[in-house]
């Protein structure tokens, strides 16, 4: 039961990944792409958690922590970059 559920969980997460990749490729503005990358990071974290659940091991939980920290730092730095390029701070 758990095995079937984790296999279908990978399928559903892959469908979500495809939707986010569409927004990453075709997003009209740059913040759209940043949101898509942030969501893709979340999906990858969920994939690692499901994989740990399927294998019954816990060696990838450090990867979950590192990936969440990296995603947060990347999002914040990208937001700072976007805001500094705007019209408010040019004067």
């Amino acid at each position, binding site marked *: *039961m*758990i095995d079937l*559920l*984790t296999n279908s*969980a990978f399928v*559903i*997460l892959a*469908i*979500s*990944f495809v*939707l*986010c990749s*569409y*927004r990453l490729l075709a997003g009209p*503005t*740059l*913040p*759209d792409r*940043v*949101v*898509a990358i*942030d*969501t893709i990071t*979340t*999906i990858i*974290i*969920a994939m690692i*958690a*499901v994989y*740990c*659940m399927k294998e*019954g091991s*816990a060696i990838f*939980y*450090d990867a*979950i*922590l590192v990936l*969440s*920290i990296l*995603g*947060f730092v990347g*999002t*914040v730095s*990208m*937001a*700072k970059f*976007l*805001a500094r*390029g*705007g*019209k*408010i*701070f040019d004067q």
Partner: protein
Amino acid sequence: MISEVLTIIFLVLGLFFILTGCLGLYRMPDVFCRMHATSKATTLGLVFILMASFVHLGFSSVGLKAILAIVFAFLTAPVGAHLISRAAYQRGVKLHDRSVTDALSARYPEKTNADQIRDQD
């Protein structure tokens, strides 16, 4: 037995929320609408999946890491979403045509978002 049932319930709930958030990212017409649809739903789905993994693997050293990841996701996801949407507004990303209000327009008098909406009215 009960841990297996809890694992299945948490996993199904998490997958539902993540898929719904990504559908919102795919379908919504605006950066702010996409942010609004995606960030909260995806964070809740991730927390549910981490809870399922925590219940399935049991109380051990893994449990602390799962709780830590849950707390970190709850702390960082709203901050990141707020920063990106604020940067998008400062950058001058247009609101959708059918947006009815722009509460930030009084604080950014140089911005063109409010002017566009007012001209369309």
